[in-house]
Structure formats: structure tokens, C-alpha cells
């Protein structure tokens, strides 16, 4: 009988055949933490183990509030630097120009690799599924225990197969696909499941587009989300893999799925997730004209070079009508955008460009909303209070829709300005 991706990858890591709902204990290949490495280090010390199990399996990337906007954040960063030194952790991305948003850096720097088991103390760790990794978010205590023991338990998840065919129409993107899927199945529609993306529609997508899909797997409750480790992925990791343990693993054609869905890209339209839940789907026509006060182009979901190019295409030679914050996902993206002249386009249009990092995505800094304000954002969550104030409203959309809306100060259809 065929096996799903999750059954194969977890079976390989466990060293024996497994099936959905078995419980396995495995050794993760990489453990990623961001600014929360400091509290995790404190918990780790409580266990009483002196050294982490494998210093080079830990990756720390400061991104949630960088450079430190307050005393508390500065102390937090300092504690991480001290722990890195004490434990001899080689993979540390401090507030320097090789860093950025953790998930982007993990992919750019060659940590995200096919067939690896990767855990992160951030729910969007599922992003690395775009590279064919089994990657999932865990809490702080679990991460501390993983550092100490090199072990983590997983229930082998049941799998949801989503087959994607067809081609995007003009103005429609991977973000519109994932918002539509989450809208259809709900915020718990894939709870505890491994989501596998299949089909020619996925094969035609860039790795960056697949990162947008996998990034939002958690927004439908998934344990992990994954795309096939095809030639595009192998090209993307060529010469930069940070581990030699990787192996291109994919589901068997006759694997058993708990649920199957199919989407044709040609059926999709630009859309948003309305406040305050990610599954609150609305096609663009239903929300067109809604007044906004801020547009945010950033986050681990949609701030790659491809996203900035797409937004710049709309903003070129035009002016924004509301404050528009652009935050590239990493310094590599930042440098590339600068080289391509995209920053001139953004600045000429009236946008503000901030340094790579998570920025206002979870209400830390660089674009907090005031009571009564509405933001259209390329990020992955529109929860109440997410951008700092519980009386504000967040709409999620693609970089194209965010750029089109920035021009008018109202939620707008990108197809009308492309």
C-alpha cells in the first residue's frame, strides 16, 4: 500500500515503517528559533542539562523586533547573544545584513531541504514544506526539551491532498489560492493534518509561490504543508545545502488520504480575508471600496523579491493615497530590490521602506494601527489585535491587491490597474 509524504519522511526518521496515527519519536535535523530563543534558553537551563545536544542543529535568527525597539527587546537579544557564545552555536543570524525574517533566511541560507525534519518555535515553520521538508511549529517548552534531548514525538498525521490544475488569470496569485482554500475548509479544516500540494498547477509555480502556500498551512490548522521536491527546488538549494542528510521524498501515487480537494487556478479571482479570521474569505468584488488607512507589503508570507516586483509593477509612475509600508523579507531581498531599482519606484510612489524583519505583523513596531484604523496586508493573520490594537481591522491580500489598494486608499481590484 502506498504511503503519504508524512508517513515516508517520519518513517525514515524513526527507522521503521509507520502509518498515520502512529506515534514516533525522532531527532530533528534543524531547530529554528527567533527572538524567543531567550525565554527558551531560560527554560532549557531549568532542565539542568549543561549543553545543547547538537549546537550546529540549532539556528537562531533575530527578526521579531529588530533592531531592538525597546529595553525589553534589547535585553532579550543580549541574552540570546550570550547563550550563542556559551553554547558555541554556529548558525546565528544577529541584527546584521545576512539576516531577515526567520523563515525567509532558513530557505535562502540552505537550511530548508527536502526530506529533513525541521521544527521551529514559530507556527509558520511550515513554510519549509515548499522545499519538501517536514517542518512544523512547536512551543517553547518543547523546543527547550528538543535542545536538551535531541528528540521530539509526533503523531504521524493523516494527510489532505490538494490537487491544483490550470493557470492563474491576470492579477491572481498563489495568495489568492491559499486564501480561497482556507475560506473553503475553515481555520480548522486541516487540523492536525499534513497538507500535500499536487498537480501541474503546483509544478508551474515558483518556489517563492509555494512558500506562500505552505506558510499559510497553519492557518487551516495543518501540522505541516508540503510541495514536491522537484527540479526547481533542487536548483534552488544547489551549492548551499547546510546538511547532507537531505533526500527528495514524495508521496506514493497510491497513498491513502483522509481527504482530497481539487482547485483549478483559472477559476480564482483576487480576494481578501476579512477581519478577524483568516477563513473569512471574500472575492474582491464584495469588498471593493472599503476604506483603508495603511497598506503593508511585508512578512514571511509575501515579501520576497517576486512579491516586491509584482507590487512595483503596479506602483510604478503612480502615487499611493495612504501610508504604505514596504518591508523586504530579508537583506538579500532588500539588496536585490535596491539593485533592480524597485526602491526608487516605491519611494517615488510615496512608500516608506523599513529594514527587513517582522515589523508590524504581530504588533511589535514599525506600523502599529490606531483604534478604528484598517490595514490591508500581505501577511498571514488578521486576528483581532494582531497589529497592536484590538479596535483595528486587518484585511489579508496578495501583493498585487495591496499595491492596487494603496493607490486608491480603498480596497481595489488589481486587474483594473495592471
Amino acid at each position, binding site marked *: 500500500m502506498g504511503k503519504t509524504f508524512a508517513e515516508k519522511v517520519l518513517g525514515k526518521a524513526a527507522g521503521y515503517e509507520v502509518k498515520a496515527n502512529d*506515534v514516533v519519536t525522532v531527532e530533528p535535523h534543524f531547530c529554528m528559533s527567533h*527572538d*524567543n530563543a531567550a*525565554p527558551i534558553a531560560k*527554560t532549557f537551563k*531549568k*532542565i*539542568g*542539562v549543561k549543553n545543547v545536544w547538537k549546537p550546529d542543529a540549532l539556528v537562531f535568527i533575530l527578526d*521579531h*523586533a529588530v533592531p531592538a525597539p*525597546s529595553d*525589553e*527587546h534589547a535585553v*532579550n537579544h543580549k541574552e540570546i547573544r550570550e547563550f550563542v557564545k556559551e553554547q558555541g552555536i554556529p548558525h546565528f543570524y544577529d541584527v546584521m545584513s545576512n539576516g531577515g525574517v526567520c523563515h525567509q533566511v532558513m530557505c535562502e541560507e540552505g537550511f530548508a531541504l527536502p526530506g529533513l525534519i525541521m521544527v*521551529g*518555535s*514559530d*507556527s509558520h*515553520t511550515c513554510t519549509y514544506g515548499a522545499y519538501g521538508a517536514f517542518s512544523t*511549529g*512547536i*512551543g*517553547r*517548552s*518543547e523546543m*527547550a*526539551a528538543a535542545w*536538551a*534531548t535531541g528528540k521530539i514525538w509526533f503523531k504521524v498525521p493523516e494527510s489532505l491532498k490538494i490537487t491544483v490544475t490550470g493557470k492563474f488569470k491576470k492579477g491572481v496569485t498563489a495568495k489568492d489560492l491559499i486564501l480561497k482554500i482556507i475560506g473553503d475548509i*475553515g*481555520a*480548522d479544516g486541516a*487540523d*492536525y493534518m499534513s497538507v500535500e500540494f499536487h498537480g501541474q498547477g503546483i509544478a508551474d509555480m515558483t518556489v517563492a509561490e509555494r512558500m506562500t502556500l505552505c506558510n499559510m498551512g*497553519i492557518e487551516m*490548522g495543518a*501540522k505541516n504543508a508540503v510541495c514536491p521536491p522537484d527540479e526547481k527546488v533542487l536548483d534552488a538549494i544547489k551549492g548551499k545545502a547546510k546538511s547532507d542528510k537531505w533526500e527528495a521524498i514524495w508521496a506514493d501515487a497510491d497513498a491513502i488520504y483522509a481527504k482530497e480537494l481539487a482547485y483549478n487556478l483559472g477559476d480564482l479571482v483576487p480576494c481578501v480575508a476579512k477581519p478577524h*479570521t483568516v*477563513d473569512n474569505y471574500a472575492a474582491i468584488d464584495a469588498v471593493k471600496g472599503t476604506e483603508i488607512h495603511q497598506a503593508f507589503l511585508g512578512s514571511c508570507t509575501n515579501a520576497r523579491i517576486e512579491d516586491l516586483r509584482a507590487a512595483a509593477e503596479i506602483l510604478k509612475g503612480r502615487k499611493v493615497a495612504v501610508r504604505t509600508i514596504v518591508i523586504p523579507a530579508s537583506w538579500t531581498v532588500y539588496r536585490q530590490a535596491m539593485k533592480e531599482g524597485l526602491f526608487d519606484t516605491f519611494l517615488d510612489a510615496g512608500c516608506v521602506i523599513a529594514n527587513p524583519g517582522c515589523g508590524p505583523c*504581530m*504588533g*511589535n513596531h514599525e506600523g502599529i494601527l490606531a483604534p478604528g484604523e484598517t490595514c490591508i496586508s500581505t501577511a498571514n*493573520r488578521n*486576528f*483581532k*489585535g*494582531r497589529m*497592536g490594537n*484590538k479596535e483595528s481591522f486587518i484585511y489579508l491580500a496578495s501583493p498585487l491587491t495591496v499595491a492596487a489598494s494603496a493607490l486608491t486608499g480603498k480596497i481595489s481590484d488589481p486587474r483594473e490597474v495592471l
Partner: protein
Amino acid sequence: MKITGKVWKYGDDVNTDVIFPGKYTYTIKDRAEMAKVALEDLDPEFTKSAKAGDIIVAGKNWGCGSSREQAVSCLKERGIGAIIAKGFARIYYRNCLNEGLPIIVSPEAVDAIEAGDEVTVDFDAGQIVTKKGTFPFPPYPEFVRGLIEDGGLIPHVKKSLGLS
């Protein structure tokens, strides 16, 4: 183990941002301080007057969103005796077990319980006793019971490594 407490009842898809707002993730480090802001974006009344031993009853997908463990710590520290829901988000579920905060999935009990009711959860018998009847729930697997009895994952790991 048996817990009797007053019920705070909430709906579906209550996420970690409203249980413990993201803006506090690096500004509040002390667990007692975390407990003071629990649920402040959802229910100021809870934030003001929830007591140790109270029970949270919720709809589906409680705790969706961030991996932020403080969204469990703040309730554990507040003394919440148990959370009964129609369903839990995966990371939140694991975080609860790891913090030693008992959680129970029982859609039937959730439908029968109203805000302000007094409810008893009998973990040994596997029963939720409400005004409208008694609802059974399956006992925790041994592994999970061990975690909760040891007071959570960290004491459990300490013990398993012979460090406590």
C-alpha cells in the same frame, strides 16, 4: 483528580493573539504578569475576575494561531482548572499537555454548558458533570497522564534524565 469550577464560555476559533496579545510577547516575561493580561482583547471581565479553579469552555479550534506558549502559561498561571472545547488547534493542544494544563475535547458537553454554570471534571472517572447531565471522555493515554502528573514537559524531561 477532580476539579469543580465556574465556567467562562467562548465561541469558535479563539486564537492565541486574543488569549495572550502579541504585543506582550517580549515585554512581559513574568508568569504572574502574563496571568494578569490573559484574554484581555476578548473578555475584559475574565481578565478582571477569573479565579483559580475556574473552567474555560469553548467552541472549535481553541488556540489557533501562533505557537506562543504564553497563551497557555497565562491561563495555567491564572489557575484555570481545565479547558473543555469542541476542538483545539494542534500546537496549542501540545503546549497545554507540555504545561500540564488539562484539556478535554467534548462537543456534547460544550453544547450543554452555559456561561457561569458550575461544572465538575472528574479525570479519574473520565466524566464532565454538568447541570444538564454527565458526559464521559476517554482517559488520557499513559504518556500524557505522566506529563500532567509530573507537572508538564520540563519536570517530566528532568525526571526522565535523572536530574530531579
